[in-house]
């Protein structure tokens, strides 16, 4: 997979600062949180937060080494670009499950929406409990036709399944 794809995913996970950190790791090969902070100007807490997030998606790895003088553990971080493909595969599976769960819910419920605007839709059961008044603003509720929502979900599920089959 191309490097630009890797940074695109990293951007999605942690924004511009995550990309800065990842680029720095790529340049240095192996670096401590302090090294990264000094080189990128991103504050230490943010560096840690982003590194832990990237590690939870296996895009970076760390190893701890005990400092001979202080006895403290020093963490060295490394970028793992070769994990991107397997991350994408597993994410596709996860997201597919979520979309299927959402589709089943949308298919098995009837929805109502506030006439006043963007308060969001609620299921029939909840609408009954609030006497068909919006729980957020008190406005009247009207029936919401979710046919287009079902079509979008079905389209995305189909797209993901087709991709997973041919990749």
């Amino acid at each position, binding site marked *: 997979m191309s490097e630009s794809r890797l940074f695109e995913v990293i951007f999605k996970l942690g924004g511009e600062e995550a990309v800065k950190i990842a680029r720095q790791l790529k340049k240095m090969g192996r670096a401590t949180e302090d090294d990264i902070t000094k080189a990128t100007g991103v504050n230490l807490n943010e560096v840690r937060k982003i590194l832990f997030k990237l590690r939870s998606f296996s895009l970076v790895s760390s190893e701890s080494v005990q400092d001979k003088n202080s006895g403290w553990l020093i963490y060295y971080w490394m970028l793992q670009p070769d994990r991107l493909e397997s991350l994408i595969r597993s994410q596709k599976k996860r997201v597919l499950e979520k979309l299927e769960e959402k589709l089943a819910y949308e298919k098995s419920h009837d929805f109502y929406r506030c006439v006043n605007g963007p308060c969001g839709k609620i299921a029939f059961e909840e609408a009954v409990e609030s006497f068909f008044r919006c729980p957020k603003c008190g406005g009247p509720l009207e029936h919401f036709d979710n046919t*287009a929502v079902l079509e979008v979900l079905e389209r995305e599920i189909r797209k993901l399944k087709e991709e997973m089959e041919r990749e």
Partner: protein
Amino acid sequence: MSGKRHENLEYEILRMIKEKGQEGILQSQLWKLIKATSREGSRISMRLERAGLVERQRILHEGKWTYKLVAKKKAITVDTLIELPCGFCYLQEKCGAGNPLSPCTCPRLNQWVEREAGRKQDG
């Protein structure tokens, strides 16, 4: 040839063949690109064929018989995943059956789906 080098080469070859899509790539061109000997390359391509990962098509190229390698599977793409709000959502671990959050009621997913549905109706 060491096992590790062989494995890396195999992975690299498969990746390059996948990137060429349905157009495929000539064996001879591929070996030049990866700086492998034709013996090394042929062995690997035959192994990839046996594993069902590539197809070797015998073709006549500039008066010589050679093989074109075409991947049976396409290169992995990330576009669909990046567009979806669940793609790399930071709340993913807390979302789904048995968790405090659910895709059924997730406001981010709802907004996205409804926006897409609106776009579909407008278009």
